[in-house]
């Protein structure tokens, strides 16, 4: 005779009587489904073929030094239906789950592959689907899905960073057009972009959040001037864009007039995930482990140093912790939640650990750690120094980590806003 289940007793004892739970077949929890694993493998195979041999190159599409490769991979992803797989079928996507989208982002970043077109596919496309007119969707979504048009994002201004709602770029009503005047800054890829989606002030008399609109601007319009900004790593990745009485057709307004804050913030919800950083961190750590475990007898000695071993093990732990947070965000999205606080947590954790891995890489390389890329006798091609300098931006961009912590405290923990 079979004994009654102990949990049955547990249920009775605590007077939370429900039907006796049947033995739950082990559900898949901390691993991928077969479909997800297959997709990961197929994407990996595609990237193996598309990326040059021994590719260690820049991971970020906003870097300018491999633009042709960026375009080639973007095209390849579009041809395979992966570029906008997260989109609904009617816009050329395949309605893939947030989990699949996160696997896509992770695999791309882990292989340091450019070409996923964050601005078009992840940020502006979904915004258009939600707020755009039918005409706008027809006109622009297809070209994003086919990888034809490059978008850039015009939000930050010289005097409006974290306090974005204070933005001053004006769009004045002039019959069929807006006349746009002002300056956008930190604009990644402006010099490569065909179009910009930007926040402009359309009602200067309303409170800051109320008088903003989101419009689309052709970067070839007369009066648009692009000034490159070279970042501290020596890379041209972003720009200052000056608008001098640029005429923009009113049909380029997305959503309602003066509702741009709400429309524009949708973008940021798509932007704020840490998965890229968690994957880059994993790739960088593995590169370091390979390096210290290599055949060079002098370098090899480092890998048996207890402090080095301990530090590398800790970094691996922290990376996995950040990675699981990103997949938690995806899982919650799949459950229909909008995990705003969790997304912020993942962004803080992942950018933080990535910069730590890069810091440690530079440190581990010792005297060689501070050789510039291209120097004679550099180790790992000076990549760790360059990446460390470049990804100083991680904890700053897409909402500084301090702003993210405010979001976590206020939206996640329910603490009062000052």
């Amino acid at each position, binding site marked *: 005779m*079979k*004994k009654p*289940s*102990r*949990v049955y*007793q*547990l*249920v009775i*004892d*605590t007077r*939370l009587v*429900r039907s006796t*739970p049947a*033995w*739950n077949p*082990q559900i*898949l*929890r*901390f*691993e991928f489904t077969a479909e997800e694993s297959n997709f990961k493998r197929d994407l990996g195979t595609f990237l193996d073929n598309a990326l040059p041999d021994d590719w260690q190159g820049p991971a970020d599409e906003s870097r300018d030094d491999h633009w042709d490769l960026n375009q080639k991979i973007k095209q390849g992803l579009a041809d395979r239906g992966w570029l906008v797989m997260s989109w609904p079928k009617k816009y050329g996507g395949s309605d893939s789950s947030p*989990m699949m989208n996160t696997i896509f982002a992770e695999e791309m970043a882990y292989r340091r592959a450019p070409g996923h077109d964050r601005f078009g596919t992840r940020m502006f496309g979904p915004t258009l689907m939600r707020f755009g007119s039918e005409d706008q969707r027809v006109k622009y979504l297809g070209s994003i899905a086919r990888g034809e048009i490059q978008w850039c994002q015009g939000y930050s201004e010289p005097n409006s960073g974290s306090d974005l709602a204070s933005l001053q770029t004006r769009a004045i009503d002039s019959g069929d057009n807006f006349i746009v005047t002002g300056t956008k800054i930190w604009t990644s890829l402006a010099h490569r972009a065909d179009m910009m989606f930007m926040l402009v002030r359309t009602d200067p008399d309303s409170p800051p959040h109320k008088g903003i609109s989101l419009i689309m601007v052709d970067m070839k319009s007369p009066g648009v001037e692009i000034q490159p900004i070279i970042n501290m790593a020596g890379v041209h990745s972003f720009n200052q864009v000056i608008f001098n009485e640029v005429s923009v057709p009113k049909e380029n307004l997305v959503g309602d007039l003066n509702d741009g804050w709400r429309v524009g913030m949708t973008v940021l919800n798509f932007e704020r995930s840490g998965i890229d950083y968690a994957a880059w961190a994993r790739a960088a750590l593995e590169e370091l*482990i390979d390096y*210290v*475990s290599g055949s060079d007898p002098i370098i090899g000695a480092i*890998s048996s140093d*207890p402090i*080095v*071993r*301990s530090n*590398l*093990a*800790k970094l*691996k*732990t*922290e990376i*996995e*912790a*950040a990675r*699981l*947070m990103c*997949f*938690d965000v995806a*899982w919650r999205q799949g*459950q229909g939640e909008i995990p705003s*606080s*969790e997304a912020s*947590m993942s962004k*803080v*954790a992942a950018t933080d650990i990535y910069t730590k891995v890069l810091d440690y890489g530079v440190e581990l390389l010792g005297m060689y750690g501070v050789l510039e890329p291209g120097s004679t006798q550099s180790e790992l091609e000076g990549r760790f120094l360059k990446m460390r300098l470049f990804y100083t931006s991680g904890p700053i961009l897409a909402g500084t980590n301090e702003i993210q*912590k*405010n979001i*976590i*405290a*206020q939206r*996640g*923990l*329910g*603490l*009062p806003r*000052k």
Partner: protein
Amino acid sequence: MDFGLTETQELIRRSAREFLKDESNSETIRSVASGNHDALEKLWKRMLELGWPALIIPEEFGGAGFSFSDLAVLLEELGATLAPVPIVESAITSWIIERYGSESMKSEILPQISSGDILLTPSIVERSGSWDTSSTTVAATKSGTNLVITGEKRFVAFAQQATHALATIRLDDGQPALITIPIWKATGVHQTPMDHVAGVPVSSITFNEVVVPEANIIATGNTAIKAVEELISAGGVARAAQLAGLGRAVLDTTVSYAANREQFGQPIGSFQAVQHHLAEMAIASKQVNHLAHSAAYSFSRDGYSYERAAQAKIAASEKISALCWTAHQCHGAIGFTWEHDLHLYTRRALAWKTDYGDANFHKSNLADAMGL
């Protein structure tokens, strides 16, 4: 990946919360910490009635036959309430008996663990204070079909409640072995209580020519080494799950304090300096939770992932004690008092971070696993 709970797990969580709210409160914890073992034994008895210690023991041995993941959900709640009971000791020793014990040993011991007649407690650490078992010195000399055991184990939790030690020993031929040794009123066994920050009974045990049947041996040689590694990993993950719950509880308490405590005419929780502390605590607590459950998930009746187990224990050990210190900072002077309960959590976090291998222990082993 699925971060949700199964229906069973939801039920375990709700039932546990309901029960522990009243049964494992500040009064109980303080009472046990001050040496009142009756309170402990009463609470443990209630849990035995609920079937919790038998949660992962297969049904054929009188248990509920649930998974390690299910156990982790329960442990989170036990951690959040600092329940002063030998649940981890009982669960992981039963897990090891099930995985490594002979059929006769399993059918003899496991039903008695389920019923509470036997309580095994891991007895691994010796004078060195290390969980590294390569230096085991407790020696067993063969005498007919018996072993004669002499030596000392330290940091044995709940030894005063346990009936048996699950101990590492060294055989005549130098081989390590894992064995059960009766310690409850046993001849030649002497216990000395250690005054431990955990606030639960912890002892050192000396064995003076203790005679134990050879049949009590669970594994020898490399199998014993593997079994002990698994015991430590399972214990580490169990502690990580408890620490995840503990961290969540401390976070909740601190958020609530910050939202209510007013200075300069407003809640201190409206200040960014305080908010950022709390946001970092929230991140840490979530990370430990994910790693603990990811590791627990890897434990199946076919094996487990050491990498995941190590990561869970490393993160739990480092992050949750740090979280507690930050909680003290947020509480200001009141959190520095004996009267306030916060230090009960901090004390337990300090104890649990050292159990089953501290962060350095697991970093070193993880580095091995990473091929370094």
